[in-house]
């Protein structure tokens, strides 16, 4: 299976051509085709992962037979296989779960909607498997364009959010391209492996440093690193429910993955800490982000906005892991990519389910949903516990490895901030759990306007549990956070450690 690398994005691309046509003539076929394409891509990712783990060697594929650096090479190593498997797997569950919400939100434009979903995923998987710096840019733009359009469907507020997202996202992409230009002009190649070799031989100079700075600024924009996160809260809050449960878990993760890629296969070891203060900046901004995000999430009343800020917080932790840049730190970051994708996927799906079943997304209106939507609430509880990082859920272990990696480097304040941010996330997440299960919830000390009667209305509003095709994928994601938490050593030892 020498072609495996290209076979991961290919089903998605191919289906995205068919789906708009199907939308015109056979709207019923749109959803099955899309799911089949995502499933096929997920299967290919799983296969690639199995092959890489078994063989211990990266899979390389060059289209047209032009060996790199002349042509473009696709590389699936341990890390790439792991990340594609995570994003396609989570995407598969989310796409299935979001069917009903999408049918409503894409009303009449189902073909277009699903085509863009597929293109989004194709772009993301493409970014992961490619071994060429410029090719990353092209795929990044594909996924971003699709994401902008999908967010744009989210009502009046979603439109402005999407426009701002477009501007900032494109700036991010352009900065990345600018950084690539600097690297290209100093080395003459675009292939990552080749670039690593040449940068290792060359004397450090300002251009390379500037290239790194621009690339990381661009990627920081894509992965919503504070203070470049400004697009994220609005985009996640106002996007259609079906869309934000898809983009929130995976979109920013791929930005983070490209950062990891820069550390492991583009820049020589230590370069990004000694020659350019990228590591230091990532750690500082990541810590700031993890605290700021959690703090901001505490003040939110809209469940999705709260989850969005929680993403800012978690992505901050991810950035810290990347910034530490030891194999353990990167492994912690990648493990967190998986864990956070699972947890956020589950949580945003519950937010979707609550909006569909009970018509609410205001945290204060959720009172009593624990009884009327038991499955959704249970998934939320598991996801929240994982997010806080209580063992043995997956969320605990990424923080665990992150802590160990931080201590290893003598970064004690990192440990302190990581622990503190878990506590802060406990504050806002348990507040929601209280609302769900402990009706009638008391007035929360949050200001004079937060009167006790604000909690009441949802009591008699009709709320039905979502059907099985929504709850089952959700439950699978929640289950996965526990199972993969317990089995994290397998992931660490079989996949991440050999890859780093």
């Amino acid at each position, binding site marked *: 299976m020498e072609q495996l690398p290209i076979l991961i994005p290919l089903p998605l*691309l191919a289906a*995205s*051509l068919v789906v*708009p046509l199907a939308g015109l003539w056979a*709207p019923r076929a749109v959803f099955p085709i899309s799911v089949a394409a995502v499933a096929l891509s997920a299967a290919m990712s799983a296969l690639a992962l199995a092959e890489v783990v078994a063989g211990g060697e990266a899979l390389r594929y060059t*289209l*047209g037979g*032009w060996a790199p*650096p*002349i*042509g*473009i090479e696709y590389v699936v190593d341990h890390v790439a296989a792991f990340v594609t498997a995570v994003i396609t797997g989570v995407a598969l569950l989310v796409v299935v779960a979001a069917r009903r919400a999408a*049918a409503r939100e894409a*009303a*009449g*434009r*189902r073909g*277009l*909607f699903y*085509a*863009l979903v597929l*293109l989004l995923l*194709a*772009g993301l998987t*493409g970014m992961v498997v*490619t071994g*060429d710096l*410029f*090719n990353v840019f*092209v*795929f990044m*733009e*594909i996924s971003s*364009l*699709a994401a*902008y*359009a*999908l967010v*744009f*469907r989210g009502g009046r507020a979603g439109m402005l959010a999407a426009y701002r997202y477009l501007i900032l996202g494109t700036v991010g992409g352009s900065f990345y391209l*600018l950084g690539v230009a*600097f690297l*290209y*002009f*100093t*080395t*003459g*190649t*675009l292939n990552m492996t080749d670039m690593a070799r*040449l940068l290792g031989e060359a004397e450090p*100079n*300002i*251009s*390379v*440093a*500037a290239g790194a*700075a*621009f690339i990381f600024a661009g990627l920081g924009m894509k992965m919503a690193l504070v203070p470049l996160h400004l697009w994220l809260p609005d985009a996640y809050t106002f996007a259609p429910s079906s869309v934000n449960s898809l983009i929130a878990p995976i979109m920013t993760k791929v930005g983070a993955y490209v950062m990891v890629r820069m550390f492991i296969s583009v820049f020589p070891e230590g370069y990004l800490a000694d020659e350019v203060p990228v590591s230091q900046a990532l750690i500082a901004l990541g810590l700031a982000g993890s605290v700021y995000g959690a703090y901001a999430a505490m003040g939110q009343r809209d469940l999705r906005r709260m989850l969005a800020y929680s993403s800012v917080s978690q992505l901050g932790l991810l950035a810290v892991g990347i910034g530490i840049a030891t194999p353990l730190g990167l492994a912690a970051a990648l493990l967190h990519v998986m864990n956070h994708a699972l947890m956020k996927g589950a949580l945003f799906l519950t937010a979707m389910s609550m909006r569909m079943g009970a018509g609410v997304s205001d945290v204060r209106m959720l009172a009593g949903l624990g009884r009327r939507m038991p499955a959704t609430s249970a998934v939320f509880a598991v996801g929240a516990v994982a997010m806080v990082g209580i063992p043995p859920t997956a969320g605990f272990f990424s923080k665990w490895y992150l802590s160990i990696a931080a201590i290893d480097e003598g970064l004690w304040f990192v440990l302190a901030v990581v622990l503190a941010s878990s506590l802060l996330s406990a504050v806002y997440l348990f507040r929601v759990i209280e609302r769900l299960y402990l009706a009638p919830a008391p007035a929360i000390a949050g200001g004079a306007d937060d009167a006790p009667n604000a909690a009441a209305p949802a009591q008699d509003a009709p709320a039905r549990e979502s059907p099985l095709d929504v709850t089952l994928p959700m439950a699978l994601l929640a289950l996965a956070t526990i199972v993969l938490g317990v089995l994290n050593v397998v992931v660490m030892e079989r996949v991440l450690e050999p890859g780093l």
Partner: protein
Amino acid sequence: MRLFALALALGTAALFIAASVDLPDRGDPDAPASNYVAPYYVEHVEEDIGIENVVSAVLADYRSYDTLGETVVIFTAGLAALLALARRERHE
């Protein structure tokens, strides 16, 4: 906000100019970019592909993934614009 934007704009410009000091001079024939991969394209295009426009050759063959991606970008943009302009009143 405007002051912030102004600072950021000046910062970008300054950063870029400061960063470019180590770049090869304009038109420097010894620049690495001109001497590593690029000559291969010029020197082998005849035998590999057999057309005269090197740019087209690279575009269509050596780096055809980029071209594929480019097409997909246009396609995506088209779909995106259609979805954005679609009126939401219609239901299935």
